[in-house]
């Protein structure tokens, strides 16, 4: 029982770590960025290559994953995304799908179609006893990371004017500019932040999901579930949703394995019917 919940929470944390960036770019900035997984993949490959080819440690490689993904995000923002903030969401879909295609082909070209090798560092391998329950160290580490990221983001986005500025700019770019907000720089930074978080999540997923060039498409629906069930544009919403999804998924598979893939989608649909704007709806929208 405890272990099932623990596993679910850990799995949920991973979903949160990868998905929260999407809640920022898609929810907060209103950019339907289906290429979110691409940035996660960039982070994942960066970490994996640094560790396996250059012998970098796990923690520094996590930081590099964040930075690399943020940089790639920044470049793409400058060249492509920037031009589409005001465009129709479907144009954004087309752009981001194009980016996914290019990234999948590019990574296949450079790294081959198969998975990346990854060995957990010894400290994170195996189990440790926590309140009498034997839990996986890596899973515990995921939970710590998730909590840390949550706290940091709440502080940055919730407590400062920064979050309000982003929301204002998304509400009405014209007027935001007309009241002195430097929308372009704001979006640039925010987008890079979202991508960096994706990269971090991608690197952390190495120990659990396995990384291959088709990553961006394979897990896209999971990211979307977390963000939409949680409430796009919020941080706590996806956090709760991710935990919910994680626990329901793991517990469902444990207690009701016949339900298989059904359960998670049924839960998602029910949640969305009950709370159409997410667990924590972004306020103030009509």
């Amino acid at each position, binding site marked *: 029982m405890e272990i099932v919940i623990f596993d679910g929470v850990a799995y949920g944390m991973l979903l949160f770590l990868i998905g929260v960036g999407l809640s920022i770019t898609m929810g907060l900035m209103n950019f339907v960025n289906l290429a979110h997984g691409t940035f996660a993949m960039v982070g994942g490959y960066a970490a994996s290559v640094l560790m396996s080819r250059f012998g970098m440690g796990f923690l520094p490689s996590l930081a590099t994953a964040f930075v690399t993904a943020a940089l790639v995000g920044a470049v793409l923002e400058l060249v492509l995304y920037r031009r589409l903030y005001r465009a129709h969401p479907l144009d954004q879909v087309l752009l981001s799908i194009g980016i996914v295609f290019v990234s999948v082909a590019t990574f296949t070209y450079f790294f081959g179609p198969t998975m990346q090798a990854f060995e957990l560092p010894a400290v994170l391998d195996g189990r440790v006893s926590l309140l009498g329950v034997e839990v996986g160290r890596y899973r515990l580490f995921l939970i710590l990371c998730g909590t840390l990221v949550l706290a940091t983001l709440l502080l940055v986005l919730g407590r400062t004017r920064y979050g309000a500025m982003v*929301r204002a700019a998304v509400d*009405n770019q*014209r007027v*935001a500019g*007309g009241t002195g907000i430097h929308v*372009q720089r704001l979006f640039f930074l925010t987008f890079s932040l979202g991508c960096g978080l994706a990269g971090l999540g991608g690197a952390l997923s190495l120990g659990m999901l396995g990384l291959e060039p088709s990553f961006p498409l394979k897990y896209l629906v999971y990211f979307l579930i977390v963000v939409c069930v949680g409430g796009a544009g919020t941080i706590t919403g996806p956090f709760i949703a991710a935990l919910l999804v994680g626990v329901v998924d793991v517990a469902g598979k444990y207690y009701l394995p016949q339900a298989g893939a059904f359960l998670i989608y049924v839960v998602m649909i029910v949640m969305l019917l009950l709370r159409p704007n997410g667990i924590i709806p972004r306020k*103030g929208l009509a």
Partner: protein
Amino acid sequence: MSEMLAFDQVVAGYGSAVVLHGLSFSLAQGQSLAVLGRNGVGKTTLLETLMGNTRVMRGAVRWCGEDLGRWPSYRRVRAGLGWVPQEREVFPSLTVEENLTVVARPGPWHLRRVYEFFPRLRERRGNYGNQLSGGEQQMLSIGRALMTNPKLLLLDEPMEGLAPIIVEELARSIRRLCESEGLPSIVVEQHPVLALEMTHQAIVLERGTVVHAGSSAALAGNARLLEGFLGVGAAEAHIHNNTGASNDSNDLDDRLA
């Protein structure tokens, strides 16, 4: 007096549609301006051009001696333009208070002072932008512009949707802001008499050009001219009976409730 703002043969519009056809005027330092004209003549477009939201095809806009050229709007705000858009356009997903603080820039105007100016906003401080009444949104939009601590207020039909008592008070305080605090305004108004009372200078637009420019007082005094430009009834005072001057001593702040 030195020039504060000037439009020099400005041709501007949206996409391929031209709205301003060689519009020119200039405004001296510290003077406020009424912009009059019928629906669709380009009053809003004039302000949007000033904010950098239109396509300027020819001509120049100078602000305090500098050509604004293609400056992005946030820079114009930082240079001192405070904009109140026609459709209010408060940020719907921000609370009243966030709407104000999010644009705050250092200067004499701060949250407390705006709340004192519009006590109604303080009462509704926790409401989201789209949970406000029309008039409250108007107040918020004005308050928001003040929070940017501008050197010139651009008011696009600021009185629309406000209760008469507030209109009176607001008109008075806009005039006072100019006189005692040196914060002039450009006022676009449908009620010429009201606008002329609030300002020093006035221009009348027709099809994207200036057809009359002069002092507000002179225009207000010339009913025939006014009616010629703006139609029958234009010269009728919106607020009759201006005996209320004696009430001026009443503190503005209690009355704007």
